[in-house]
C-alpha cells in the first residue's frame, strides 16, 4: 500500500517528464548489464564457424584439443551455426558488423558473392606464402575438390574433408527378391529393375507400402533443391554429359546425355508410382519403408545407431551407359579478410589437411579424407578393412567429379535444372522439353552476365 501511495504521490503532479526520465534510466541500466569483461591474454583466439551435426561434435572437439595441445598459444573457438539459410544470414550480418569469424564453412552457393564483396582471402596468398604448401602436397589433394574450391581460376577455399554419393540399401530386402546383395544394382538397367521389384503393395490398397528406391525429388524452390540437383548430376556425367561448356558460354545439360539421365529418373518415378516422400529418407529407411537410396558418408556414424535393427550396406553408384561416376563434395573453409589473425588461421587449416590428421578426423567423423596420402596411414588402412561401407566411399573418390566451374550464374543454373527435374517427374512433363526450357533460361542468364562482365 505504501509503495502505491509513494507512486501516486510522485505522479500526482502530472509531471510529464517523469516517464521519459524513467525510460532513459531503464535504457541506461541496460547498457550496464551484459558488459563483457574481456580478459587480456597472450593467447590468440581463432573463431571457427561450422555446422557439424551433434553426432560429429565429439570428433571436432578431439581435433581441436589435439591442435591446442600442439599449439599452446592458440585457442580455437568453434561455434555451431545452423546450416543452410541460417549460415548465410549469420555471415551476412557478421560481415556487415565486422564480427566475421576467422574461419568459416561456406557453401558454393554464395562463394561468388563473398568473392565479389571482397570478404575473403584468396587462398593462394597463403598456399604460396612462407608457410605454404609444396607442389606435391597440392597435387595430393583430390583435383576435383580443388577445382570446386576455385572460382574464376583462383583458389578461394580449402576443402576440410570430402564426400561423395553412393548407394545405401537394405541387404535382406534385396536378398528376398533374388537380387545380388553383394553387388547391388551395378548399372542403370539393374537399378530400374530392382527399384520396381522391391516396390511392394502388401495389402493391396493401391498404395505402395514399400518403395524400392528413394528418388530425391524436392521442390525446386526449397532448401533441398540443391541436394536434389547434386544427386542427379552424376547421372548426367555417367551418360557422358556435362552441365556447361568448357568456355562457359552455354549450358549442355539438355543434350542427349541429359535427356537420358532425366528419362531414367522419370521412368523410375512413374514405375514406382512415387508420390514424393515428405519425410526424410533416412527415417523411412530405418522404418523399413525404403529399400534403396543414395547418400553421402556423413551419415555413417548416425547409421550405426539409427539402422542397428537392419542389415544394410553401401555400394558404389550404378554405372551409367558411358562411364562410372559419382559427385564429390565436402566442406570448404574460407578465411575472412576481417580476421585479425589470418596467419594463425591458415596454420590451423594447414594442420587439418595433414595426412595423419585427415586420417584420424576421417575415422572419427565419417567424412572422407581430402587427399590421397591419408589412405597410406596404417591405422587408416586397418580402419578401411574393418569398415567396408566406408571403404566404398573412399574408393569412389577415384571416379568422383565435380561440376565444371561456372564463374557466374551458378545459382540460377542449378535452379533451372531443379525446375526441369521437378517438371519431368512430378509434373509428368517430357524430359527433352523440360530440359530445353530450362536450358533456354540458363543460356539467357549466362549471356546477360557475359555482357555485363565484358
Amino acid at each position, binding site marked *: 500500500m505504501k509503495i502505491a501511495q509513494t507512486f501516486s504521490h510522485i505522479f500526482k503532479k*502530472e509531471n*510529464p*517528464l*517523469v*516517464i*521519459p526520465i524513467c*525510460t532513459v534510466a*531503464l*535504457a541506461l541500466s541496460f547498457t550496464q548489464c551484459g558488459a563483457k569483461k574481456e580478459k587480456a591474454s597472450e593467447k590468440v583466439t581463432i573463431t571457427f564457424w561450422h555446422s557439424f551435426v551433434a553426432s560429429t561434435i565429439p570428433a571436432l572437439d578431439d581435433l581441436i584439443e589435439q591442435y591446442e595441445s600442439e599449439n599452446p598459444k592458440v585457442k580455437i573457438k568453434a561455434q555451431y551455426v545452423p546450416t543452410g*539459410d541460417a549460415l*548465410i*544470414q549469420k*555471415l*551476412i550480418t557478421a*560481415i*556487415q558488423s565486422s564480427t566475421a569469424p576467422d574461419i568459416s564453412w561456406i557453401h558454393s*552457393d*554464395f562463394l561468388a*558473392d*563473398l568473392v*565479389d*564483396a*571482397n*570478404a575473403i582471402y584468396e587462398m593462394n596468398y597463403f598456399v604460396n606464402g612462407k608457410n605454404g604448401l609444396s607442389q606435391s602436397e597440392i597435387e595430393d589433394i583430390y583435383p576435383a575438390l580443388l577445382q570446386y574450391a576455385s572460382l574464376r581460376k583462383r583458389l578461394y577455399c580449402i576443402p576440410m574433408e570430402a564426400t561423395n554419393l553412393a548407394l545405401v540399401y537394405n541387404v535382406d530386402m534385396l536378398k528376398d527378391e533374388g537380387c545380388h546383395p553383394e553387388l547391388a544394382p551395378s548399372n542403370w538397367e539393374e537399378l530400374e529393375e530392382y527399384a520396381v521389384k522391391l516396390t511392394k503393395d502388401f495389402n493391396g*490398397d*493401391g*498404395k*505402395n*507400402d514399400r*518403395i524400392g528406391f528413394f528418388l530425391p525429388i*524436392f*521442390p*525446386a*524452390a*526449397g*532448401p*533441398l*533443391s540443391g541436394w536434389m540437383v547434386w544427386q542427379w548430376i552424376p547421372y548426367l556425367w555417367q551418360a557422358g554429359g556435362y552441365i556447361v561448356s568448357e568456355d562457359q558460354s552455354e549450358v549442355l545439360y539438355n543434350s542427349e546425355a541429359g535427356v537420358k539421365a532425366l528419362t531414367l529418373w522419370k521412368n523410375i518415378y512413374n514405375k514406382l508410382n512415387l*508420390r*514424393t*516422400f*515428405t*519425410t526424410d529418407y533416412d527415417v*523411412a529407411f530405418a*522404418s523399413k*519403408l525404403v529399400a534403396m537410396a543414395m547418400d553421402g558418408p556423413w551419415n555413417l556414424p548416425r547409421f550405426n545407431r539409427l539402422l542397428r535393427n537392419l542389415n544394410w550396406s553401401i555400394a558404389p553408384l550404378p554405372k551409367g551407359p558411358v562411364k562410372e561416376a559419382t559427385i564429390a563434395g565436402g566442406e570448404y573453409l574460407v578465411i575472412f579478410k576481417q580476421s585479425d589473425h589470418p596467419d594463425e588461421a591458415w596454420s590451423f587449416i594447414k594442420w587439418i589437411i595433414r595426412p595423419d590428421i585427415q586420417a584420424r578426423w576421417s575415422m572419427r567423423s565419417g567424412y572422407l579424407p581430402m587427399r590421397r596420402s591419408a589412405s597410406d596411414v596404417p591405422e587408416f588402412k586397418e580402419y578401411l578393412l574393418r569398415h567396408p561401407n566406408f571403404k566404398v566411399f573412399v574408393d569412389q573418390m577415384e571416379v568422383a567429379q565435380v561440376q565444371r566451374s561456372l564463374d557466374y550464374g551458378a*545459382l*540460377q543454373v542449378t535452379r533451372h535444372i531443379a525446375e526441369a527435374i*521437378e*517438371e519431368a517427374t*512430378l*509434373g509428368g512433363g517430357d524430359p527433352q522439353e523440360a530440359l530445353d526450357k530450362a536450358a533456354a533460361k540458363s543460356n539467357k542468364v549466362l549471356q546477360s552476365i557475359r555482357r555485363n562482365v565484358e
Partner: protein
Amino acid sequence: MWNKFLQRKKPVIHPSAGTSGKNIFTALAFLSPTLVIFCTFILFPVFFSFYLSFHKWNMFSSDRAFIGFENYRRLFTDPEFWMVLKHTLVYTLGTVPLNMVIALLIALALNRRIAGKRFLRTAFFTPVIISPVAAALIWRWIYDPNFGLLNYFTGLFGLPSVNWLNDPNTAMIALIIMGVWKTVGINMVLFSAGLQGIPDNFYEAADIDGAGRWAKFWHITVPMLSPTTFFIMIMSMISSFQVFDIVYVLTSGGPLGATKVIVFYMYEYAFKFFEMGYASAVAYIFFAILAILTLLQVKFMKTRAGYRAI
C-alpha cells in the same frame, strides 16, 4: 429498453478534462518509451528498407549501387510476382474467414457452462505454442502421401489417398488447413478476452426483458465485440498475407510453385539470390497492397458499426 443501456455506454471519446495545451506534452510522456524504441528499431529499418529498394545490394559487400526504379519495374513485369500475389490472396481468403468463425464459435462455447474449461482452452491453444518449424515438420508427416496420418485416417473410411502436398491442386488446401489449425487458438484467446469485457449487467437486463439467445448475441455481443473483431480481422489478414514459415517447411513453394506466396518469393530473392534491393522493392509493393486492403476494411467497419470501433 435495455438497448438504451447500450447507447449510454457507447465508448465515445470526450474531450479530456484538462487544458488542451498540455495535451501533446502529456501524450508524449505516455508515448515516449514506445516511441523511442519504435523509431530506433522499427521505423528506421523500415525506412532503410525503402531506401534499399532503389539499390542493388548483395548484402555481403558494403557497396550499394543506386538503380532507381529498376527493381520496381522488374517487379511489375515479372509474371511470377503476379502469380505469387494470387496465391497469397487465395491463402488469405481461405484462412481468415474460416479462422475467425471457428475461433468465435469456440470462444462462445467456452464462455458457457462447460466442464474442463482450462483444459479445453489449453488444448485449442497448443497449436499456437508449438514452434512453427516443429509443427510444420509434424504436419509434413501427417500429409505424407504414403505413410502419413491423414491418408491413413481417410483410408479407414475407404476414401482414396490424396497426394496432399505434391498435387498442385490440393497443396494450397493442405496449407490452408494447417494454417487455420495453427492460428485459430490465437483468435480464440482474443475473442475470449473480448467477451470477458462485456459486462454481465447487459445480458441480465436483456434477460429481464425476455430477449432470446440470438437477439442477445446480435444486439449485445456483436456490437460490444466490434473493437476486438476489428483487431482480429486486421491482424489475421496481415499475418495470413505474411505467411512464410509453414510454406517454407511444408511445401517450399511447391509443388511446381503452386504454393509460392509473396513473402517466400521475397525471401528467395533476399537470401537465395542475394538481391536485397529487389526483395525490398517487393516488400514495399506488398506493404502498399496490404495497406489498401486494410483501409478498405476500416471503411467497411466504419460504415457498418455505429460504434466507434476503430
